[in-house]
């Protein structure tokens, strides 16, 4: 960033010096550019960015004042060039602008408010966009950090096998470091109830790669990777505060983890990515002999590019190393290659990037409306000050002289508005952080108002000032002297041209507002339709929680099976519980495990064997969630490990794979549920579909097979507990006690009611709908206030004409119709243009919509009626005032 800015400035200087100082010999221009570069570097090193800006300012000023432009403007009468005259004039014009703004406090306050809102919202959104799309991640030399992974041709999940990792690490030369991370869960027993914490095993160089040093104690050293050494752990600052009360004496002491004990050796720095949801506990990654031979891909590998190596070279090297290595791995390596990607591109999800750009676009549109609004108001002001301008022109002011104060006034307002906007942005950003759904922004990025954002705000303010100020200033520059002076002491009503200009601005504002209002309406309809999708089960009165059995103490399948059976029985027996049951995943959570299968007696598809979502469930799970049984039976306590193998399938499974629809009684072979794949499973029941992949999952998307937990135990299960009445959360203490009685070291996590889970699955949708709706409301408000202001001016300017009409017999209703009619025509034009633009724009976010389309006529009509109604009200208020004009008074005023 720094190097790029300096290089760009030097290049710009070199061009300017050549253009502005033609008489310099070519050599001198090159030397001047060299000296410029040396001086700007010195300024930056010595006094930082402010020093650099100050130096650039001084250089620009002297460059201009010694340029041929300045020499050409030399005035022999005063002996001055324009660079000498200019500061004086500027001061003069600034004073004029300041006085004129002070004279119109209502106008100034209104414009400042609009600018502060518009620029503030843009500043806040830009800081989010900057954090996720442009700024380097907050790690040392973050643009040199890449994620490398083994990659199948069909798309993989960014992971690598230990065998491949070890091989790359010893052979690849393009990386200064290659470090691996593997996720795990640990149950922490210190400092309160046993809590399951997200943990990670990392190779000792992991923190060095990120450039992170411990805030307390130390991070890992290569010696920590020795399996003979006692286990050590590093934790996040948040965990240290929460469980150890930031007590320094805890460092060096053993930490009690379920199943193992590790010495706490260090605490990571506070307020970093490690405090925002990344793993909270780290232990060194040492491969067990089995793991070291493993071709399972479960490592996340980060690399730091070696000095001077471009990512393309690293990618090519790794690909060739992997190709040679994969050839030796047999089936494990066939069809696999590698992927080397900047880490940031992996961290920030495509959907997040799209959302941020869309919101940034929306907030930009709001600012455009604000600009058009201010320009419209400015034109009215210019018209109202027509006489003053005419007097100045008559006294010999040049066009530029007339033009300048208006532009300056606008710039003054926009820069002041920007300054207030920065304060607004910091509030907005805080509000944004509070409502943004967890997981949308990766923990590694944090939007802040830094110098980059402030520069953006300054640039936006200046552009807004120029954009909103140019039209009125241009009007002032070309107004006719005689016309304005002849119009009398109250000033004229403006020409046809000014009113046409204002009308055009209004149409633009309404069209943009229409785009945003339509977008918001489409998203609201979508949210409503998604929320009313039937999930396939009854979510009311259900509490859910997750329990996992630590493998160190529940090593065998039998032990795991026995534990969950006992837990199931204990929770089911609690007073107030109707049904309790557990399964490996809950609806709406997405697919977790798939398995291949073959239905006995049906033709086999060897090319593309079918697969289904596999769930292990305890008896009572189907009843606890209230999933309807379509045929046969659900699991019972008799479906034990010794009993015949049984399975339940869902309706989609039957519809897709069993043509005659008779599932019960058939037998199915399952691929990977148990070690013994030769014995089939009897299908004993069919249940209705649930929305496993989320509420918007299309019908027939997820075929599912359920098998009894005892026949294929899994170490981590979600419990669903249906209560008889009242708030299901009230049962939490009793359930905790029941679990603790069975095993005091089991961690209970992820406790939520099913209704909360459904709500959480809508978070992302609700969030973007709310954001767009807020921007749309703002846009509509601004556009309508623009309609009001312009119509009010128009009515005031036609006071005399209306007075005459009334005197000649026009009715009150006729006058209102006349005044509203003009506003109505503009509104209809704006809405029509906006409607077309909306249909066209909304196609970009088509995938956000559900059961509606960008050209949904109902939604478009509703949006048009809403916005049109508001606009008509805005033009009706001044029209009503017109109707009360007393003709005698209006005519007497002249």
């Amino acid at each position, binding site marked *: 960033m720094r190097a790029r800015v300096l290089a760009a400035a030097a290049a710009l*200087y070199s061009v300017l*010096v050549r253009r502005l*100082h033609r*008489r*310099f010999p070519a*050599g*001198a*221009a*090159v*030397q*001047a*550019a*060299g*000296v*410029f570069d*040396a*001086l700007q570097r010195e300024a930056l090193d010595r006094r930082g960015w402010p020093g650099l800006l100050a*130096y650039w300012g*001084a*250089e620009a000023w*002297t*460059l201009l004042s*010694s340029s041929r432009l300045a020499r050409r403007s030399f005035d022999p009468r005063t002996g001055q060039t324009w660079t000498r005259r200019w500061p004086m004039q500027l001061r003069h014009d600034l004073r004029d602008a300041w006085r004129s703004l002070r004279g119109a406090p209502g106008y100034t306050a209104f414009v400042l408010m609009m600018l502060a809102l518009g620029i503030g919202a843009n500043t806040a959104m830009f800081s989010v966009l900057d954090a996720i799309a442009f700024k380097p991640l907050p790690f040392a030399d973050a643009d040199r950090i890449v994620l490398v992974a083994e990659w199948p041709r069909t798309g993989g999940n960014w992971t690598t096998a230990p065998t491949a990792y070890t091989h790359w690490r010893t052979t690849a030369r393009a990386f200064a470091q290659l470090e691996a991370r593997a996720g795990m869960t640990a149950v922490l027993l210190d400092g309160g109830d046993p809590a399951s914490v997200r943990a990670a095993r990392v190779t000792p160089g992991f923190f060095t790669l990120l450039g992170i040093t411990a805030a307390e104690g130390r991070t890992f050293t290569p010696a920590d990777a020795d399996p003979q050494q006692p286990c050590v752990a590093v934790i996040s600052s948040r965990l240290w505060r929460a469980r150890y009360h930031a007590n320094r004496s805890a460092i060096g002491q053993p930490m009690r983890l379920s199943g193992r004990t590790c010495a706490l050796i260090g605490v990571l720095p506070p307020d970093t990515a490690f405090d925002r949801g990344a793993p909270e506990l780290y232990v060194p990654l040492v491969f067990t002999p089995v793991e070291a031979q493993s071709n399972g891909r479960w490592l996340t590998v980060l690399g730091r590019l070696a000095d001077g190596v471009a990512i393309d070279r690293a990618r090519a090297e790794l690909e060739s190393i992997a190709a040679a290595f994969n050839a030796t791995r047999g089936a494990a390596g066939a069809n696999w290659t590698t992927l080397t990607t900047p880490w940031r591109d992996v961290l920030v999800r495509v959907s997040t990037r799209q959302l941020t750009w869309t919101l940034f676009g929306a907030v930009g549109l709001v600012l455009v409306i604000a600009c058009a609004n201010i320009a419209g108001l400015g034109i009215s002001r210019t018209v109202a000050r027509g006489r003053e301008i005419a007097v100045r022109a008559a006294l010999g002011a040049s066009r530029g002289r007339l033009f300048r104060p208006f532009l300056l006034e606008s710039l003054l307002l926009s820069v002041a508005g920007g300054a207030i906007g920065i304060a607004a942005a910091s509030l907005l950003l805080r509000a944004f952080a509070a409502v943004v759904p967890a997981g949308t922004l990766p923990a590694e990025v944090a939007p802040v108002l830094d110098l980059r954002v402030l520069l953006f705000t300054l640039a936006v303010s200046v552009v807004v000032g120029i954009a909103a100020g140019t039209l009125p200033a241009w009007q002032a520059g070309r107004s006719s002297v005689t016309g304005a002076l002849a119009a009398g002491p109250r000033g004229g009503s403006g020409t046809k041209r000014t009113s046409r200009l204002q009308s055009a601005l209004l149409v633009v504002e309404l069209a943009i507002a229409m785009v945003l209002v339509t977008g918001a309406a489409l998203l609201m309809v979508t949210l409503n339709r998604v929320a009313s999708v039937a999930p396939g089960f009854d979510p009311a009165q259900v509490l859910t929680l997750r329990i996992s059995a630590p493998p160190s103490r529940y090593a065998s399948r039998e032990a795991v099976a026995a534990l969950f059976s006992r837990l199931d029985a204990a929770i089911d027996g609690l007073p107030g519980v109707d049904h309790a049951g557990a399964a490996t995943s809950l609806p709406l959570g997405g697919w977790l495990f798939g398995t291949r299968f073959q239905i006995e007696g049906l033709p086999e598809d060897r090319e593309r064997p079918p697969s289904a979502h596999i769930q292990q469930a305890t008896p009572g799970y189907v009843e606890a969630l209230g999933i309807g049984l379509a045929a046969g039976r659900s699991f019972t306590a008799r479906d034990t490990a010794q009993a015949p193998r049984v399975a339940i399938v869902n309706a989609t499974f039957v519809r897709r794979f069993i043509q005659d629809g008779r599932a019960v009684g058939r037998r199915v072979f399952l691929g990977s549920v148990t070690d013994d794949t030769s014995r089939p499973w009897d299908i004993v029941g069919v249940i209705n579909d649930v929305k496993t992949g989320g509420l918007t999952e299309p019908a027939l998307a997820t075929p599912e097979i359920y098998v009894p937990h005892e026949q294929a135990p899994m170490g981590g299960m979600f419990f669903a507990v249906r209560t008889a009445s009242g708030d299901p959360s009230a049962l939490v203490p009793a359930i905790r006690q029941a679990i603790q009685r069975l095993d005091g070291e089991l961690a209970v996590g992820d406790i939520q009611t099913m209704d909360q889970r459904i709500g959480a699955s809508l978070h992302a949708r609700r969030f973007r709908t709310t954001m767009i709706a807020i921007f749309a409301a703002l846009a509509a408000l601004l556009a309508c206030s623009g309609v009001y202001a312009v119509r009010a001016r128009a009515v005031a300017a036609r006071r005399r004409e209306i007075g005459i009409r009334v005197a000649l017999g026009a009715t009150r209703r006729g006058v209102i119709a006349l005044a509203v009619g003009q506003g109505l025509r503009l509104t209809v034009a704006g809405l029509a243009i906006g409607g077309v633009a909306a249909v066209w724009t909304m196609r970009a976010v088509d995938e956000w919509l559900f059961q509606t389309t960008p050209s949904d006529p109902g939604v478009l009509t509703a949006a048009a009626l809403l916005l049109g109604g508001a606009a008509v009200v805005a033009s009706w208020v001044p029209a009503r005032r017109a109707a009360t004009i007393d003709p005698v008074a209006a005519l007497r005023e002249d």
Partner: protein
Amino acid sequence: MTPQVFQILLALADHDLHGYAIIKEIADRTGGQLRLTASTLYAALKRLLDDGLIEELDPPRDETDPRRRYYRLTRAGRTAGRAEAGRLDALAGMARAKKWLPRRRPEH
């Protein structure tokens, strides 16, 4: 003669210097009070070259950057600089006579 031009002549009084070195010499000598920008320097150098007060030299053999040009005071330049210094001294003398400046300490 502007203060900038006078300072440039002073900077070249003892040594032949290149552009950046002139700016540094002036900034050091004036305690940072006068910092020339690149544009000011080269605009002034051009005028001084045109008036024959300085001349351009090829870089010395040990110079690492071959693009650098060195500047040397000409005889005319030295004369002009001395004349300006004399004028300033005379002005200072008048100011001293009106007690705008403290009396000069006796010379050793």
